[in-house]
């Protein structure tokens, strides 16, 4: 049974001093329901992605909170957590609920409120995505784990810090065209190169920011969408893979195996090859993560992601546009919301609603969402659905 996205909503990403966690998810959820043309009463279940609300704002029990805020009690509402991949896992669970035949209309949410703690508090909260006992215990931080991956990639393939910087420059340029992005500021290679090291070779401007935001989708079974005459975007594959929580459990440090496996399965399910994909939203929590992603997803050969980025092959007008929304780097990264926000971008692009950043004739889109340093990866493939 096919699954179709029939509505999408997103808040502006950034520092929302005037909005609480519950107001962010309510705003995104209401926008999604309204854009679907359905009524709230028709929604049968909710799946919500949220990573660290307990540590960030002291609030757990997010499933019930979302249903309550959207006025949708008493339908079942469940939180999904897989670190920064929480949003895509929630989306996947909602797909499974529809594919099982149990439900035909399901809402998906993703939300995080990160700016109410200082930077150390946020680092501690995000650290929960790594291995507490054998990584964080020794003084590892998230940037330092990706720095270890970056150094290994540089050593194996000659990837340079300038190539990594070019990812940040491109994503900031794309975000200029996205009204919901956190940053509307172009940056240069020199600015990235001159920013301070956080964990060598990763610099401040290689890192995604701390962000508040929420995103939501309304999913419908294909049969029901046809019956109701709804247009939208079909989810043709949603695949998930796991890997060791700690980097020391990985055979290779120059790929994220979970990404590669999830992608292979997703391409197989969708019956396509990577060359058929018209654009992708990938998990660029750090610039090296985008380079790893475009290789592991099969858009470029292993080791050629850095040079491809430097040569503009991933820009809006390049061979394969990557992160037209601005990505985690410049659109912002409210961790639990990110996977759902990526799906919102895929929906907008395939519906032709992406305004200035619209990719012409986009027919097939892909999203790629990673938890932690690669212990969870979810790859989702989308295509237009005309009803």
């Amino acid at each position: 049974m096919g699954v179709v996205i029939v509505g999408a909503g997103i808040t502006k990403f950034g520092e929302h001093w005037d909005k609480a966690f519950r107001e962010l998810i309510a705003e995104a959820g209401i926008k999604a329901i309204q854009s679907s043309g359905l009524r709230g009463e028709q929604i049968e279940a909710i799946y919500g992605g949220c990573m660290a609300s307990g540590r960030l704002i002291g609030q757990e029990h997010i499933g019930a909170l979302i249903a309550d805020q959207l006025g949708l009690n008493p339908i079942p509402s469940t939180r999904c957590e897989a670190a920064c991949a929480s949003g895509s896992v929630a989306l996947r669970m909602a797909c499974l609920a529809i594919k099982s035949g149990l439900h035909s209309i399901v809402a998906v949410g993703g939300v995080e409120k990160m700016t109410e703690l200082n930077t150390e508090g946020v680092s501690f909260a995000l650290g929960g995505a790594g291995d507490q006992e054998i990584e964080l215990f020794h003084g590892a931080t998230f940037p330092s784990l990706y720095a270890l991956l970056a150094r290994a990639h540089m050593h194996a393939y000659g990837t340079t810090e300038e190539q990594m910087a070019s990812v940040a420059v491109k994503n900031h340029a794309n975000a200029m065209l996205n009204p919901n992005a956190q940053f509307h500021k172009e940056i240069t290679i020199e600015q990235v190169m001159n920013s301070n090291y956080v964990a060598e070779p990763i610099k401040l401007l290689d890192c995604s920011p701390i962000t508040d935001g929420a995103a939501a989708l309304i999913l419908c079974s294909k049969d029901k969408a046809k019956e109701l005459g709804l247009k939208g975007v079909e989810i043709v594959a949603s695949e998930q893979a796991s890997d060791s929580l700690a980097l020391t459990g990985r055979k290779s440090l120059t790929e994220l195996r979970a990404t590669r496996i999830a992608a292979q399965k997703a391409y197989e399910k969708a019956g396509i090859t990577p060359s058929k994909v018209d654009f992708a939203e990938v998990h660029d929590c750090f610039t090296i993560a985008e380079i790893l992603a475009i290789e592991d997803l099969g858009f470029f050969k292993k080791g050629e992601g850095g040079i491809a980025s430097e040569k503009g092959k991933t820009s809006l007008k390049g061979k394969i546009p990557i992160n037209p929304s601005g990505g985690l780097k410049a659109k912002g990264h409210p961790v639990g919301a990110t996977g759902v926000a990526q799906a919102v971008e895929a929906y907008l692009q395939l519906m032709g609603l992406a305004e200035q950043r619209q990719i012409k004739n986009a027919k097939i889109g892909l999203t790629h969402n990673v938890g932690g340093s690669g212990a969870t990866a979810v790859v989702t493939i989308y295509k237009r659905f005309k009803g």
Partner: protein
Amino acid sequence: MQNIAPLNWRRFPERYLLKGNYCENCKQAFFPPRAICPNCRRKGKLVSMEMPRTGKIISYTKVYVPPEGFKNEAPYYLAIIELENGARVLSQIVDSEPEKIKIGAKVKKVFRRIGEPDKYGTITYGYKFKVVE
């Protein structure tokens, strides 16, 4: 606040002696020890084993922005080390000249205090590594 004393106590064999385990069926060493061999599953035969105390750097980074509890030490080096039996550990690299900390460099285990004492004064010890000539 979390009481870290029981966790520290449970991990003495790993953190003090690099105690891991080894599968006699597929010959793979695991650190920290695993409850089941992922290669052989129920056919595996895991036995407790101290890891070798030497290995080489697979990747490294210099951490400038430290987490809570590591402020006094920053900047410091972290590395992924492959021990001589193939098991990998993440550890700080200390007592080494920066230009010698590189991929492929040989390292050996040393015993050090890890991070700063917590608010109850609990001091935590464990392994770090240093480059050997």
